[in-house]
């Protein structure tokens, strides 16, 4: 099918034509990923449900509304401080569903296993998935296994699908952000990304950084009970908070103005980021959500988040503004202003 693609006719001239092959950055959750979806997948699939570009899609079925989501997990190493690929797969899928306001119910899991993988490792991953499913209150109801030749996989790849039920009246989506909305963040930024990076080859930090992987459906339920008119919910995974907020700003044609000083970051994560020249705003999270809430419900929403164990460090980090639509800005620590742009490819450590 590749031969049929007309690269010249793509609606946006940049930047894919200059990369005839898939780059790692196409999976980085930033601009390259967004371009791939927008210019390759959406035109090919052409379904209204996809056009909303949410973490999960909402479809009507038998008189009700169902949230559907799918996700793939290719993390290396398979086991990292604070979690493993199995727990991540369950929580990630649960969170994609929860971000549409749905109550997650059923998951499926497909395993692509590399020849030679120790069974004990797979056993640990399966048990970890079962425990995560119990904790999130979802059931794993279908599965599949394929094995590929040694060298053709990275131990274990997991693909999931998730189904959830949308309560009547809930309407959450990126295009609903409105000027005046409060932007709430449920906790510290960057823990997952730096935890995984810290155990990759060649990087060792003295104090361990632990992944924040967690199921957010309970936190979302508490939030919706206190603030029923939540406009937008997203979990800032790959590409970090910066990419998530840019997507929302562009989808709703609004601006987002952050206060950098209000954004919570664990000191160990901050130190690791300083060391590598990275910005926590661009580092992945697996147990945090960002909520856009009408100003009138902001206090109640923040209190509800903080009352939940997964939201203890929740904070009001900014506001939606009518100015500079499509752009995210931040007031810096010393009172200046900067633009928080979308991540381009992968975040790269700086030279010096």
């Amino acid at each position, binding site marked *: 099918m590749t031969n049929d693609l007309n690269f010249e006719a793509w609606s*946006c001239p*940049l*930047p894919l034509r*200059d*990369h005839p*092959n*898939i*780059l*790692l*950055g196409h999976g980085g959750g930033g*601009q*390259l990923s967004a371009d791939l979806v*927008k210019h390759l997948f959406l035109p090919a699939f052409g379904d209204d449900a996809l056009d909303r570009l949410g973490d999960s899609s909402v479809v009507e079925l038998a008189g009700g509304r169902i949230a559907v989501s799918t996700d793939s997990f290719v993390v290396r190493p398979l086991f990292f401080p604070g979690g493993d690929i199995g727990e991540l797969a369950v929580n990630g899928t649960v969170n994609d569903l929860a971000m549409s306001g749905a109550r997650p119910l059923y998951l499926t899991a497909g395993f692509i296993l590399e020849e030679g993988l120790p069974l004990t490792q797979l056993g640990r991953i399966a048990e970890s998935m079962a425990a995560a499913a119990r904790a999130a209150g979802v059931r794993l109801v279908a599965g599949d296994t394929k094995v590929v030749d040694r060298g053709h996989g990275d131990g274990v790849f997991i693909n999931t699908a998730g189904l959830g039920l949308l309560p009547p009246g809930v309407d959450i989506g990126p295009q609903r952000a409105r000027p005046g909305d409060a932007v709430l963040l449920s906790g510290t930024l960057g823990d997952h990304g730096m935890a995984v990076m810290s155990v990759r*080859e*060649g*990087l060792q930090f003295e104090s361990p950084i632990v992944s924040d992987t967690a199921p957010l459906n309970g936190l979302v339920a508490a939030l919706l009970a206190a603030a029923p008119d939540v406009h937008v919910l997203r979990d800032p995974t790959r590409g970090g908070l910066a990419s998530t907020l840019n997507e929302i*700003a*562009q989808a709703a044609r609004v601006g987002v103005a952050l206060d950098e000083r209000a954004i919570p970051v664990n*000191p160990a994560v*901050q*130190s690791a980021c*300083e060391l*590598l*020249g990275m910005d926590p705003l661009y580092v992945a999270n697996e147990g945090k959500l960002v909520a856009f809430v009408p100003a009138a419900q902001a206090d109640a929403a923040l209190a509800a988040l903080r009352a939940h164990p997964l939201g203890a460090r929740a904070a009001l980090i900014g506001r939606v503004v009518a100015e*500079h*639509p*499509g*752009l995210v*800005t931040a007031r*810096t*620590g*010393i*009172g*200046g*202003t*900067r*633009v928080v*742009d979308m991540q*381009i*490819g992968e975040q*790269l*450590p*700086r*030279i*010096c």
Partner: protein
Amino acid sequence: MKYLDEFRDPAAAQALFQEIARTARRPWVMMEVCGGQTHSIIRNGIDQLLPPTVELIHGPGCPVCVTPLEMIDKALAIAARPGVIFCSFGDMLRVPGSAGDLFGVKSEGGDVRIVYSPLDAVKIARDNPHKEVVFFGIGFETTAPANAMAVVQARQLGLKNFSMLVSHVLVPPAIEAIMSSRHNRVQAFLAAGHVCSVMGYWQYGPLAEKYHVPIVVTGFEPLDVLEGIRRAVKQLEEGRAEVENAYPRAVRYEGNQPAQKMLAEVFTVTDRTWRGIGVIPASGWALSEAYAEFDAARRFTVEAIRTQESPLCHSGEVLQGLLKPNQCPAFGKECTPQKPLGATMVSSEGACAAYYRYGRFAMPESLQPLAPA
């Protein structure tokens, strides 16, 4: 965070801004040499908060940006060879050569790896005796000691499969080149603190004297940068042209002597082309004769390279401080971080990328790229 938070204190920053505004009675133009400082200035919005009397020009101190095109093309050719593991710092991978970048080579099957230290590349060479491991040794004096140490270690380990493609550049000759340009507008320099932590600042006295230009060794946190600016303004107002150290917690006059000794053994001074600027005499380091066996440029013969820069790219003028990034006609249009025409749009320390990333908001509507509808 200790050692950082105290240098980001908003109240102290305000006090420095006010003092700078009080001190600067006439308009002054100063250049921060280092890309790390440019990054900090734009990242924190320092340039927006300075009085209109102080103009900052962003210097050529981004190692990624000034690495010559020919060297990038050489790297691309070597990295594409079978049997080669090509190791590089991360932000070199996106820098455009005449055709493509290292990410592209990687996607086409080249074994290109991001390392965090050149010593990691030595380890890779030790672990892969049947592969040729090449490290892209670029940077200013700051990264040079680690690169030199990698070559020294490779020799100690008896590694025959490790080599380095060296394109080091040096700060003092660049300052000299800027000051002797007839287009020069720079009246004072903020010298790069990290470079000086290695080299000291004994080299700068003759420059300050010859060109009657204040040179202030400056750090990278907001208060460090502001203190550097404050001292430079004070010197200018008082008609002085001295070398001052505003970063004493990291920099001593003599610098790191053991590092300098090793650098003198491993490297030799050479003329160097700076991307966008041209050849600056005696402005770079290459491997010395004693370590020539580790020189990737000698080990791999690369066929005659015909380099071609984009005709739209004005990065040379940006690097010389003649043009602000947003004054380039291609800025934010043909040239963005996703599709950089020049290296200054690639590295997070590059002036164009820093402007695009952190400064787009403040720019005229006509220069802002359209968000997807």
